[in-house]
Structure formats: C-alpha cells, structure tokens
C-alpha cells in the first residue's frame, strides 16, 4: 500500500532550486527542462545491463499497480557476489523492482508482474516455484529496522526454525552465533540474547535484521535503503558489513545516498519514472555517465 502511495508522488517531480537563473520566469524554464527530460526517456537503457557471471536475470520486467505502470520494461543482470546499487528519485520504481526479486509484491493485491526473472536459471514467477522457498533464497532487509517483538536469539533463530535448518538445539545455537558474528553484532549482544530485539539501538536493530536474513543462508540479499533511518556511525558499520557479505552473497541495495552507492557497490543502476535509464560500473557512472538524466541526478541538479 505504501508503495502505491509513494508512486503517486512521482507525478510531482520536484523543481530544483539551484536552477540557472533564467531571465524569463523560472517556472517556464523548469517546465521546458522537464519536457526535455521526458523526451530523453526513450525506454532504452544505456550502459551495460549484462553482468559477466549473471545470477539474477530480469528480462523485460513490467509491473502494474492497477492502472499505474510502475516498472517499464526493465532488463538487468546481477552477478554472483556482486553489489548492485539501485538509485533514482523517490517513486522511480527502484523499491518496486527490488521487491519483484523475491516476490514480496505478491502480497499487494493490485500488483501485476510480467516479464521474466530468473534466479540461477530458474524462473521465479513460474507456477511450480513456491514463493515461500524463494524468500529463503532471496533475503530482504527493509528500510526501517523491523525486528520481531521477541528475544534477540529468537529473532535470528526464527528463519532456521521455520525452514527446519537445525537438527537440534546445539546446531541452532551454532547458526544463531555465526549469523550474529557475521552481522558484527555478537560482541555487543552475547550476554543478553534473551532480551527483546526491540530493546537494541537503531543500528543494532538493523544489524539484527541482517543477521536474521543471513541465518537462513540466502543466495541473494536485497536491501531497501537499509541505512536511511540510521546515524552515520551505524551507517558506516552496515556499509562495512555489506562489503564483507558481498564475498558470499549477491547484494542488491536501494539507496538515496550517492556516496553510499559509490562506496559499497560494484555496479549502479539509475531508475527514472519506472524506467531503467542507465546501468554501468560504479566508477563509470559517477565519473562519466552516458545519459543526461543520470548526469543531472548524480550531480545533484535533479531530484
């Protein structure tokens, strides 16, 4: 539902204040500029949509929320052990695209997904694929830390428990400790595993959510603006964590911070009005963007 709302906001593309002071009325100038931008949206993605060792492959994905065409013909490959950042102005569809990758959009009734998304060669929207099993393979970390109102231990143990990953208590303990360790949280919570997960600080909560996600040993981790509710120190910790995790997982991260995208990702995809405008290696995007819209966005002249 909230997704829908943010997409409606899309119609109002904010006029940039640092506009070149035109001699004529600034309103007219901004209007002209918008028209230019829209004409530049040809629907064809520039840059490199293909990855060298693709693991998640999205081909011509379209998403509709009722009458709203939220994602328009997006093709993107994500490599094994690769961090891909999705950037773009609010409501451009990057979160929607992210949620297609583990079928979280299924829970929104009006959402319709067409096109083809494969995970390791397997069509994730095929009839015989269970979304429940898929979500164990493609974990997700949300914008706002959302630990369960249970103990820290139970938060991490929940996934392994429902999927039956641990044979006995010792094995479960092992999974919980390793996951917390990998999420860089174990040192801080070792002595209070039976305390409420919600009693932790925001940054700790987000790392707990990451520990919860990696406890079921996924192949891909999706992160939907994981640091937007955190302070810079907690953000830095999460970014370090993403670096470490990328050795084992493919990670797709949605972010509003260009610096963050530059710091953590190997490739960057720029979304605009539901279209994938440009994808390329991170340094190339930030130093030499091909598309005018991308350039406007990363230089802060837009959105």
């Amino acid at each position, binding site marked *: *539902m909230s997704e829908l709302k943010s997409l409606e906001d899309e119609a109002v593309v904010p006029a940039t204040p640092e506009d070149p002071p035109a001699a004529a009325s600034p309103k007219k100038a901004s209007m002209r500029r918008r028209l230019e931008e829209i004409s530049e949206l040809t629907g064809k993605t520039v840059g490199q949509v293909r990855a060298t060792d693709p693991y998640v492959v999205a081909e011509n994905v379209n998403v509709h929320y009722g009458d709203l065409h939220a994602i328009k013909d997006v093709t993107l490959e994500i490599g094994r052990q690769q961090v891909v950042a999705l950037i773009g102005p609010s409501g451009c569809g990057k979160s929607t695209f992210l949620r297609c990758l583990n079928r979280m959009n299924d829970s929104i*009734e009006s959402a319709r997904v067409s096109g083809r998304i494969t995970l390791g060669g397997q069509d994730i929207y095929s009839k015989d694929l269970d979304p*429940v099993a898929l*979500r164990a393979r493609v974990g997700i970390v949300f914008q*706002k830390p959302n630990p*369960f*109102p249970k103990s820290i231990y139970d938060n991490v143990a929940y*996934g392994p428990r*429902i999927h039956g990953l641990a044979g006995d208590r010792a094995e479960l303990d092992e999974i919980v400790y390793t996951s917390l360790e990998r999420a860089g949280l174990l040192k801080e919570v070792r002595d209070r595993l039976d305390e409420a997960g919600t009693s932790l600080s925001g940054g700790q909560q987000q790392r707990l959510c990451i520990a919860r*996600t990696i406890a079921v040993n996924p192949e891909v981790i999706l992160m939907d603006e994981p640091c937007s509710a955190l302070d810079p120190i907690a953000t830095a910790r999460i970014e370090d964590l993403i670096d470490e995790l990328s050795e084992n997982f493919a990670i797709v991260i949605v972010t509003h911070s260009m610096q963050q995208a530059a710091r953590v990702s190997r490739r960057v995809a720029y979304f605009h009005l539901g279209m994938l405008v440009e994808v390329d290696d991170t340094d190339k995007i930030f130093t030499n963007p091909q598309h005018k819209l991308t350039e406007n966005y990363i230089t802060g002249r837009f959105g």
Partner: protein
Amino acid sequence: MNDSAEPSRGTRGRMEAGLKRRHRREALFRLAGLLATAVGIVFLGVFFVSLFAQGLSAFKQTFVELDIEYSEEILAPGGQPDLEYADYDSLVRNALWKEFPEVTDRQARRQLARLVSAGAGFQLRDALRENPELIGTGQRVPVPVSADVDMLAKGKIDRAAVAAQRRLSDRQIDWIDELSGQGRLQTRFNVALFTNGDSREPELAGIRGALMGSLYMLIVTIALAFPLGVAAAVYLEEFAPKNRWADLIEVNINNLAAVPSIVFGLLGLAVFVNWLGMPRSAPLVGGLVLALLTLPVIIIASRAAIKAVPPSIREAALGIGASRMQVVFHHVLPLALPGMLTGAIIGMSRALGETAPLLMIGMVAFIVDVPSGFTDPATALPVQIFLWADSPERAFAERTSAAIIVLLGFLLLMNLAAIIMRKKAGRQW
C-alpha cells in the same frame, strides 16, 4: 527601522488577540470536560450508594435461638426414625409454644409459628441426618426467622404504622421484643443467599441457581464465540480477497452488532428450541444465543486488533520465508491477542448482563433447583434480578440489590481476569 517594524507589530498584535481567544476556548473546553466527568462520577456514586444501602443488609440474616427437643415421638413415631419425612416443623412449633406457654388459642399459636422461617425445619433435618444420635436429646439451636421478622429486626418495617398496614401484628411484635430482650435474636452471614436456588420465601431464596446458570451459559458462549470470532476475523483480515463481497460481509457484521438482543432471542427460540428440539430454559440454548449476540462484537474487536499489528512485522516474517499461515500464527496473533481478549471480555460482559433474549427461550421460569449441567433448566443472574424486582415481598427488594451487587462482582472478576490475561499475553514485548 520604524517602517520595517510596523507590519510585524501589526501581525503580532493580531496574533496576540487571537491567542487570547484560543486560550479562552481551551479553558472552556477543559471546564466542559471536567464538568462531564464530574457529572458521570456523581451519578455513579449515587448508584453505588443507593445500591449498597439497599443491598448490603441482604447479606445478613436474623436467627432466633430456640430450645429444640428432638423428641422420639415425632421423629420416630413407629419406633424406627424416618429422617426423610419426619415432621420437623412440629419440632420448631413445639419449641416456640414452650417458649410462650401463655399462648393457647389456635390463631395465636399459628401466628407464633409464623415467626420462624419454613427453612428452620430443613435445617433441623440436615442436622439430624448428619448426627442421628441427637434423637431423644435437647439443644439450643439458632434457626432463621421469617422474612417479615427479619425485616423488622433490620428496621425495615415501621413499628409506628397502623397494625393493618403492617405485615406483623402487635402481638407478634411483642413476642419478638421479648425474645430480643432475652438476647435470643442474632444476625449472621446469610449463607442461604449463596447456597440456595430461588424460592417463594425470601429468607430461603438464593442466587446460586442463577449464578450457576449464568456460569454455564458464559462457558458455552466463550467456547463458541471466541474461537469462531477470532477465526472469522483472521480470515477476513489476512486471507479473504478484498472485493465487493468482503465489503458486504463487513457491513453486515457491523449491522449485526447493532441488532436488538431480543431478536436474537426469537432466533434462538425458532432455531434451537423449536427446530433443533433443544431443551427449553437450558443454559446450553442461552449460551448459543448469547454466542450469536457476542460474535459480531468479538469479530469487530479482533479485526481492529489485527489491523493494528504493524505491517513491518508481517513483511519481516514474509521476507524471511514464513508462509502466510506462519505469519498469522507466529506474529500477528500473539501481537493482536491483548486486543482480542479485550473485545472478548467486552462481549462477555454484555452477554452476562443480557436479559431479553433469555426471556424468549424460557430462562425466565421459576426454578428452585440449582442446575448441575448445561441442559438443566436454569435462569441467569439478570433474569433473577428481574424476577425478584417484580416480587411484592419487601425482603425481595434488598435481595434484588444484593443480586445486582453479586452481578457487578462477577463482572469485576471477569474484567480482572481479562487484565491479567492481557498482561500475560503482552509480556512477550
């Protein structure tokens, strides 16, 4: 300088004038709120004071000590004691006549006998059953007085009134005063009120039958309405497709919650009693009717509680690969449980106080026996209050209030249970 300060002073002046008005309004609103609260509290106070002033005396009963002779002549006329059908009343009568030997004519003796409750004989029977060796001996036993004497002792009969307008004659009052002068009258806790069923004699009437009837009914109601209501709420909130049918069902449930309760009584009479042939006056049928009555309340409260569970928790569970059923049972229900319990208790409280539908299914009958099961004829507390309030005897007036106090106590107990359960359910953060 002055020029630039001028407009700002104008704005501020206007704002200050408006501010004064805003503060005045706020003060007025607060006063109104305070007044409303005060009126509510005053009414509640008046209600409680009058209730307890009327009802508290019903928890006390006056007894008179009599020298009872367990004579073999009366108890074992054929030589063999027949404790079941012996003439216990004449034991009591004889004791009274011995107390006042000067009373000899039949009418006066009958008046004398009326001082003591009909329950005195039963009391002697129970004592003898427990201890048959008493036969042939004598004992000073406190026995309950009749309701009218009890009223006199509690000061609820006006001695100054004309004798014809009093329930007790001058002679009877003299006898009572004489016994009282000897210190033979005593007030004790009215155990009969809690151990007896209904009775035509106020001093023998108790609320146990009604209490048990209400209890059986509530057991049926909660056992049916809570699981059904929660299941319906979970289905409607979490699984049902959101379409025109769902809207229609929602509107109907909301309307059902507002249907007058007597209509449910008629439904129960038609369906459960007449069509399905269930017994009349049974707590089972009453419980079924009350379950129908509370179901919409529980569904509405449960849906609200489920809606209040943050969607982020659902997403977190879904995102980790929980099935929708696991999301509901592991996360949504535990978090919604306190709200659901509150709804259930509100529904139960309403069911406990409900009278009208029970009248339709025959639970208004005069039933002396305490029900011992779900299909025994029974009545309920509010119906008992209604029946007693309708009785002309003065002693029933105080019993009516006493029954109301017990009903309120029952409600309080239920709410307490709800609070405890809510605390327990809410402890998992």
